[in-house]
């Protein structure tokens, strides 16, 4: 029995499934209390499904709205872990596949949701280290050409990050930048293969 458990865990995502209601409640509480309220007790006992960092993000929003410094990709961040799952059969279908092309899960989401948020909502193992601020390449996904071509071109910031993505293809995008439209119904997002550090350990740095 434990064998089955392991495999399920390895295949799917680390964090337990989120109870959206709970996460919304947590978020509301943080909003009203503003930034810095978490006691050490709530640190250890807080629900795992709370979108990590909601607190700091809110602090950031206050901060940025009061000061016009420079455009930081911000808006997608607020939604992560908190997107609305559409009623079954009414949403836009998204297929997530692993690097070998096997289907992980087919899920449904709403117009405007991005692939990173959708992956997090449905516990797909897609990382979002910078939480959708286009400052890393961890949510790199590979699309099929017919869907890739329907998307607006990636902007410079996204391209800068894609430059660093591992296993880049001609139809690669950052998941956080792919927002669903009705036309994208049936889109397939394939996760790139991970590296094995077997091949990079001990390699000498290239001499300049």
């Amino acid at each position, binding site marked *: 029995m434990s064998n089955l458990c392991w495999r399920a*865990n390895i295949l799917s995502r*680390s964090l337990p499934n989120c109870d959206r209601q709970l996460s919304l409640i947590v978020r509301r509480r943080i909003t009203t209390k503003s930034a810095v309220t*978490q006691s050490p007790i709530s640190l250890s006992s807080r629900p795992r499904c709370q979108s990590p960092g909601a607190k700091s993000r809110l602090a950031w929003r206050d901060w940025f709205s009061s000061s016009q410094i420079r455009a930081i990709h911000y808006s997608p*961040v607020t939604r992560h872990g908190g997107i609305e799952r559409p009623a079954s059969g009414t949403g836009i279908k998204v297929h997530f596949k692993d690097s070998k092309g096997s289907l992980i899960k087919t899920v449904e989401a709403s117009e405007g949701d991005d692939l990173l948020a959708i992956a997090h909502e449905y516990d797909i193992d897609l990382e979002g280290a910078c939480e959708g601020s286009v400052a890393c390449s*961890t949510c790199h996904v590979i699309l099929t050409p017919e869907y890739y071509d329907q998307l607006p071109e990636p902007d410079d910031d996204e*391209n800068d990050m894609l*430059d660093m993505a*591992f296993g880049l293809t001609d139809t690669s995008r950052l998941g956080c930048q792919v927002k669903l439209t009705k036309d994208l119904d049936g889109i397939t997002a394939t996760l790139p293969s991970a590296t094995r550090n*077997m091949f990079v*350990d001990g390699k000498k740095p290239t001499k300049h």
Partner: protein
Amino acid sequence: MPLKPLKLAVIGGGPSAFYVASRILSLVPNANTSPPVRVHLFDRLWAPHGLVRYGVAPDHPEVKNCTHKFDATASDPRFRFFGNINIGDAITPISHTHKLSLSSIFNSYSHVLFATGCTLPTLHSALPPSQHCIPALSLVHWYTQHPNRSPPPALDKISHVSLIGNGNVSLDVARMLLTPVSTLAQYDVPESVLDVLSRSSVRHVSIIGRRGPLEAAFTTKELRELINLPDASMVPIEPSFLKPSPDLTLSRQQSRTLQLLSKGSKNAFGSTPKTWSLDFYRSPTGLIVDPSDPTTAELSLAHTMVDPRTQRAVSTGESSTLPTSLVVTSLGFHGEPTASFYDPGLGHLRTLGARIITNEGHALKNMYASGWAATGAKGVLASTMMNAYAAADTVLGDVLPDREPEEPKVLVEDILLNPNPDLDGVPREVAQGLKEGSVTQYGDWKKIDEEEIKRGQAVGKERERMNWEDARKFLETVRDRSPH
């Protein structure tokens, strides 16, 4: 058969350490059917998150979002963090840290993973550190208020800075020197640093590289940020450097870099108070300071070209000098040479498939390394994360009953580690430090984190950092208020 416990000591508390911990704790449910797991992180610094706190440029706050995931990992009851603990023999120990021998770790843990990073700057043989020549790491430590207390640079007395090397650290330093202080003031930049920057008389930053634009180490993101600076402009690049020979196939990043460089900076050269240049095909050969005028030095540069066969920089025989006030070397990093399993040829620990390899070439059982400690100082956060996940898989392959051990499979049996440690015990020295309040835990850090953000918000910035003296004082007041 009882499940083998995994009581893992991770030496280091940076992103690699946290990603390893995160992966292990998320793949092994905290349940009776799972092997008992504990992951304890030890950091020589009092604050966790390594280069995310003490390396990431202040104007890249988005990169620091990964700490939210680290916070989530730290909330797992099987996780503990111990700061201010220096394990082994550091060349440059931080004064207030507790010393802990590796054997104390071995006695208390069943598995050990080194995530010690690459903490020392690689120097240039022709440019020994001096009053006029410092490693970029000193500046990074200064503007992040790293506990090793790098002194502030005398920016009010200099006008020209020469950065040797054109990787992202070099460009970070250039941006710190060229970005308006009013912009930096809103980020996580300590007030004392802003004071120095506001008095800066730096007018030009030269970024010197031995090879050309195609070989440059910076990423397009960092280049674009420099190009878009509001108060600075770039010296136009010699057009012939931007026309690669037609038989070369350029990578995507190379073509985009060339495009960016051809367009030049957003502000026309000369229209701004500050300027910068990418000085390609130049290799420093020495620095001469005139004793009668110590404010200026002459940097000797050999002119170079790229040998098409080896891709290395070779001298053309020509040379020139560049008058400059401060030379900052940014040539990469290496590990501590006194660390166990350090390979001086590699500049980091000797590993294969995340396993530690002995001098004799044997893979050690239950000893691992991840991150820059294992791969050397290269790659961005995403590569560190992937590497850490692979290392976590190697650890789990040795522990989980349904997994096959990862390569290499021929392992030297260790006699050092403790296969059946007291799961919740910590080394005696750590227990003592905790009692004295000089060893920090994650809960302490979260209190400081909140306070830093609060102090920052009061003055309209992301956070105001504490040093260890501030932090210790603050923790004492918080602990006094608590009932224990």
